[in-house]
């Protein structure tokens, strides 16, 4: 019988270790897999690649990941910390010890979807003529310069959702979804944490991530901090 629910973080994160790449869902605190981020902080894995919208929300919630310089590369749309201070990850970046690939947010989402959809590369007008297109192939379509962008895939995707079922089907609440569908598509192993993983199937028309993209469902209460939106 298909049942993707797992009882422990160890089973959920089986195979995670040095050199792993991880897609992390979340935008403004919504859909952020706080339990799984904390679990990653509690491993000793190094040389990690994180692919996420903004570094800040991971660094704010699980500071040991960057404090111990366990990340070697980040692909993101936002790498600026709050306020005037320089964050640990910004120091690491300024030291040349952290590679940050800055990607326009729509291109970021689309590259991840492409990775999951078997599209190796696509042209987009976004960023053409800017420094984020430096070194990338550019071609005109209908007189508009477009940049060739490559698909992104990763070893793991971690996502929080309001509901999941034993087949791995997922349903979001509000704006939890953000990068979740694309990330579930693009990862070798996708893990979803949720409060609600009962025995009942989500109605077929109500599914936001089809279970085919999901490997493990980890039932766990929401560990979101009170200030999640701000971190």
């Amino acid at each position, binding site marked *: 019988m298909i049942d993707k629910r797992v009882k422990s973080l160890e089973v959920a994160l089986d195979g995670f270790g040095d050199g792993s790449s991880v897609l992390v869902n979340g935008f403004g605190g919504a859909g952020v897999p706080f339990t799984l981020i904390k679990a990653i902080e509690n491993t000793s894995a190094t040389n990690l690649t994180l692919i996420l919208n903004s570094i800040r929300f991971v660094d704010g919630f699980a500071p040991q990941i960057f404090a111990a310089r366990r990340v070697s590369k980040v692909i993101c749309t936002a790498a600026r910390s709050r306020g005037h201070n320089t964050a640990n990850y910004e120091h690491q970046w300024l030291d040349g010890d952290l590679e940050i690939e800055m990607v326009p947010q729509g291109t970021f989402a689309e590259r991840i979807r492409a990775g999951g959809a078997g599209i190796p590369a696509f042209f987009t007008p976004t960023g053409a003529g800017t*420094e984020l297109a430096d070194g990338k192939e550019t071609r005109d379509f209908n007189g508009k310069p477009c940049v060739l962008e490559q698909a992104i895939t990763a070893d793991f995707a971690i996502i929080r959702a309001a509901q999941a079922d034993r087949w791995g089907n997922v349903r979001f609440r509000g704006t939890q979804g953000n990068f979740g569908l694309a990330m579930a598509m693009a990862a070798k192993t996708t893990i979803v944490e949720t409060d609600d993983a009962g025995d009942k199937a989500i109605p077929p028309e109500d599914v936001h991530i089809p279970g085919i993209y999901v490997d493990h469902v980890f039932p766990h209460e929401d560990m979101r901090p009170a200030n999640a*939106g701000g971190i």
Partner: protein
Amino acid sequence: MQPLTRHQIAWRAAQDLREGSYVNLGLGLPVLVANYKPADRDLMFHSENGIVGIGPIAGEIEEDPDFVDAGSQKITLSEGAALFDSTQAFAMIRGGHLDVTLLGGFEVSETGDLANWDAKMAHKGQLVGGAMDLVAGAKSVRVTMQHTTKTGEPRLVEKCSYPLTGIGTVNRIYTDLAVVDVADNGFLVREMIAGLTREELQAKSGATLMFAENFGTLDVPEL
């Protein structure tokens, strides 16, 4: 002369939003525009984290951490709202389905280039967000900004000095002094506040200004 306040700039930008428009409001001044939506106009506000139909900012009672906008503000939804994922949110942007995007800016060039993403802050990381997609995709790209920097340097320029967000995509600029279109042959002033001369506005601008035939006064209420 009385330069516009931030709220007055927002008010002025709101007047140009047509009935039934789909509009994305960027962080900072642009989000204020929603407050000044003319009462008779039904507008749908889009957020790049997956919303069409943002309602008012949530009060303490409605506040729900699963309902946030792209600026991480806790929001409510308006009637008829739809929620979707980021790829869909950006398909709307890139595919030209937004009528208007309103963004903040550091500089706009006379050919419509926008610089608004990288302030080149020493010791701070970069942040691009969705700005490059928004300027590449929306039907009308409108920028709100102060006419000059705090030290009096012009923000309407021949050529941007900051890293570009997009090339030749800005249609209109709302500043504290004027409403300026980016026309085929350069900056075209549509409105200017009372008590300022054309020469004075030109002196505060880094590129040649033209003045529209139906040029008028930039007139806003007290706010």
